[in-house]
């Protein structure tokens, strides 16, 4: 790990931290406009975070250190992945040891921390949200792991950098059926992991229907600011990873400043496009019945399995 790669990591982190809330704001604006509303400005999530950071913090009297630490864990895990993942460049710090499965599990630590914090509040909503979130998590993770397996088969490696670099060097692999099937599965995973429609409605006020929002009902002030920031960073990371697996166009192969600038612009553009597409999709769909979700997620799992099978057959 040299100075250049550290610098690259800092650039990626800054992009994810600054861009995450803006991405969320952009998706809200797109949704509003398509519904015929003006909507809040793109910068609204940042304004919310700034406002919340200044406000008083209240915590449930029965809660323990877990509740206090969880927002930090969420932000820290997202920040770790933001530094290490191949978002802007193929040369982030610790590139040779950035394992795809490790990245997923680091992000998972953040999810589990929030679910534990929700249980820690000892409220019915916290427990209900945690139960729902972990149920979905338990259905999503297998799909995700099998999708990773399909993506890693050509290289016999689960190194995330190597997988993205391979796609960048040999564009033909991007169109392989195994790769495409795995990415389809990845889409389902992203919608579920980031709590978007049709899995969860991020803009609902109905407590009883909430999944991910129910987890954070008790958070306020700076804690809620951290949770909002962490969630939006995770959304940016998921979409960033996705676009680089689909089309690693423009990703910086080295830590050269010019390449970094190109990588930065390319990533931003790609994520913006995908973010808009997701927002458009959200407008045209509705929320699935909770008990139908396993069907959707099982579909994602099957796609990933098919990816592995076709990958094995076609070799």
């Amino acid at each position: 790990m040299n100075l250049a790669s550290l610098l690259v990591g800092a650039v990626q982190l800054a992009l994810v931290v600054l861009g995450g809330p803006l991405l969320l704001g952009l998706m809200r604006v797109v949704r509003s406009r398509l519904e015929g509303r003006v909507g809040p400005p793109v910068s609204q999530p940042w304004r919310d975070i700034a406002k919340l950071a200044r406000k008083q913090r209240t915590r449930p009297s029965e809660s323990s250190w877990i509740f206090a630490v969880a927002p930090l864990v969420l932000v820290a895990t997202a920040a770790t992945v933001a530094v290490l993942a191949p978002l802007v460049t193929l040369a982030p710090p610790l590139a040779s040891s950035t394992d795809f499965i490790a990245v997923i599990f680091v992000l998972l630590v953040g999810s589990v921390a929030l679910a534990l914090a929700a249980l820690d509040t000892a409220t019915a909503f916290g427990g209900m949200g945690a139960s729902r979130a972990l149920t979905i998590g338990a259905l999503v993770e297998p799909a995700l792991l099998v999708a990773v397996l399909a993506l890693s088969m050509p290289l016999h490696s689960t190194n995330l950098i190597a997988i993205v670099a391979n796609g960048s060097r040999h564009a033909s692999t991007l169109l392989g059926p195994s790769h495409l099937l795995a990415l389809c599965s990845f889409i389902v995973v992203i919608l579920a992991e980031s709590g978007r429609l049709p899995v969860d409605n991020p803009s609902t006020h109905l407590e009883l229907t909430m999944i991910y929002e129910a987890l954070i009902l008790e958070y306020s002030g700076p804690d809620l600011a951290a949770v909002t920031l962490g969630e939006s960073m995770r959304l940016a990371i998921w979409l960033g990873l996705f676009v680089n697996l689909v089309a690693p166009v423009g990703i910086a192969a080295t830590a050269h400043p010019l390449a970094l600038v190109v990588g930065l612009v390319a990533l931003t553009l790609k994520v913006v496009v995908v973010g808009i597409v997701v927002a458009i999709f959200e407008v045209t769909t509705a929320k699935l019945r909770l008990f139908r979700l396993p069907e959707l997620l099982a579909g994602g799992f099957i796609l990933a399995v098919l990816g592995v099978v076709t990958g094995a057959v076609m070799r």
Partner: protein
Amino acid sequence: MRSETRAIRTSELVDEARGLFAAQFRLALVAGQDDERGLRVVYTFLAPREQPVELHVALNPATRRSVSLAALSFPASRFERELFDLYGIEPEGHPQRRPLIRHAHWPEGYHPMAAGAGPAPTLHPDEGGFPFIAVEGPGVYEIPVGPVHAGLIEPGHFRFSVVGETILKMKARLWFTHKGIERLVEGKTVEDVMAIAERVSGDSAVAHGLAYARAIEDALELVVAPGVEARRAVALELERLYNHVGDLGALANDVGFGLANARALTLRERLLRLNERVSGHRLLRGVVTPGDARLLDLPTPRELDEIGARVDEITSMTLAQSIVLDRFTGTGVLSLDAARDLGVVGVVGRASGVDLDARGDHPVDGVTLAPMVLRSSGDVLARYMVRRDEVTSSLAILRSFTSSGGGHLAVMSGSGVGLGIVEGWRGPVIHRVELVDGRVARLKIVDPSFLNWPAVAIALVDTIVPDFPLVNKSFNLSYAGNDL
């Protein structure tokens, strides 16, 4: 319409009621009264296209005992609990005479409508609490929700006993909005009470206002001029329109289909502006007065066509979405048997196949009748479809009217007893008024929400928790109209 009045003794009540129920009457209203003329209870029975029947029972003010009709009618059991809370009348033979309106904040033995109850007392902390039946078993847990909710809705506390996500039992604790309206109106002039009647439930200004006005006309044996009922029908259908359109959007929104809701809200705003042009008030207050109705303008046929086209667009967009259809279908089923047993009325009743619609059942002259919209499946989809089709029939009714105008407020004086029945957008709104020398001696109001609230809990059995908001919205009952 004049009611047939029968003064009976307590001992005859059960037999009289049984006879009326056998003749397909339903118990629509029970009003207590406690004044210098003694303690008495009035039971009003209604049946489609029949003269209303009133049973008057005088009670001994010392013992304050009556006989319960709970074994014959579920609504009766609730009216009797209300009577006990407000008047301290003990219904003998009632299986579960728990408090209904009364919260534990009220002082012990305080019955606000009893003679000599005095001014409102200071309220105590809720020490008695409100014990819920605990459902026991492995994995059963409780979810308390409210009374303060996210979003702009009225207060109600819901206690769910849940295993996994399946609702085993839901108990609602309402009655956070007791305003003492029935006491407030006593001794006021007919005109003053008119303004209060319009404000019983904000979304039903016409329905409650008109029910009151009709009750006054009935009491004073006034015959309204030709055209008055037509103008009232315009206001009533406009009220139905803006509320149903709002509900059509809100139901889509509750399953995450925000696009339809955004369209519906836009249309609802257009309807509110139309209301303002037609009546001078966005919520149509001030249209109806006893003896008359005043309209400044009428919706043009082109406007009505365009509203119809917009509603078609919204509903077909919603129903074309397979996820929405899946969420609506088979959710929160209220069977016809359950609906009849509970005495459910209005939109909710018609979605379960209860063929009651006061517009046809108690018709007034000069108003075109639309065919009753009836569904049988009793699920959220049925309640959605009833609203959709009633919008169409409301538009048809509105097209048939061509004249506006009216608007003098005659000074009302005289004495009498009258009943007013109006099919508001939720269901039948009933006012029963007793006038003494031009002043209101007693006004009893029954909002359809009072009869329909128990059905929410029944429809929820075996529904999953995340579907509750959808089911509740499909009922869309009033808290304010329920708790006077």
